């Protein structure tokens, strides 16, 4: 009886159905779990993470509700990249003060712009229009 069974199995070969079952399940798993959207992250420097006392007065930069950067003590002027680099010393700490109506997107853009100029900024509290008018 037994030898007959063995010869029968030899004739059937490997079934493709089982293989494709497993491959379909793997395919479904990878399709459902994988993500294609790349994420990035910006460090929000907190006032707590300061390690040394600053030698200079911190430079206060405002981000207005249109995403423009201005010096807080001269809030009329919109700063270009050259003006930013000229007005901020590399050893002075930089504090970014967003206007209360500034969207998160503009804050991200401002932080990225400063980063690309080699400056790192601490994000401060938001300021209101009244505070901006009377610094």
């Amino acid at each position: 009886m037994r030898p007959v069974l063995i010869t029968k199995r030899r004739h059937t070969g490997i079934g493709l159905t089982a293989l494709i079952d497993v491959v379909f399940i793997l395919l479904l798993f990878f399709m459902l779990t994988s993500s294609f959207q790349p994420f990035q992250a910006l460090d929000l420097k907190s006032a707590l993470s300061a390690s040394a006392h600053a030698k200079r007065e911190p430079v206060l930069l405002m981000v207005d509700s249109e995403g423009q950067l201005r010096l807080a003590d001269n809030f009329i002027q919109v700063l270009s990249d050259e003006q930013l680099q000229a007005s901020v010393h590399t050893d002075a700490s930089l504090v970014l003060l967003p206007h209360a109506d500034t969207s998160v997107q503009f804050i991200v853009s401002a932080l990225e712009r400063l980063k690309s100029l080699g400056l790192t900024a601490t994000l401060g509290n938001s300021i209101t229009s009244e505070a901006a008018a009377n610094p």
Partner: protein
Amino acid sequence: MKNTLARCRRKNAENNMIPLINIVFLLLIFFMIAGRIEASRPPELDLPVSYHAAPATAQAVTISINAAGQWFVQDQPITADTLPMALDSMALSAQTGIDLFLHQSLKARDLDAMLEALRTQGIARVRLVTREGERL
């Protein structure tokens, strides 16, 4: 005669399956290589776009604020009052990094209370997670 016909049919059916298996294998390899398996992110959030920030690796704690200004810690809704309690229960240290997922249209004033609460908790490492924009 009948037996031969049946065997022939079965062989035909298996031969027809081979292109299907080829395609399925290709799809499998594509999803294995091109996709990344990672913890699920808050799906309904339209994150701010950045171009030059560092690629994000997932941190231990995620906090998100949706477009309506509601706060979530690890997808559990919280308020400014219950945030300290929620963070306490996770036994965080000062070195714990926090991922902040914010809807891109939120205003700076919505962010203030959250950052203030995190500062009060002594958490210094906060990262703002953004979506990588398409480079021109």
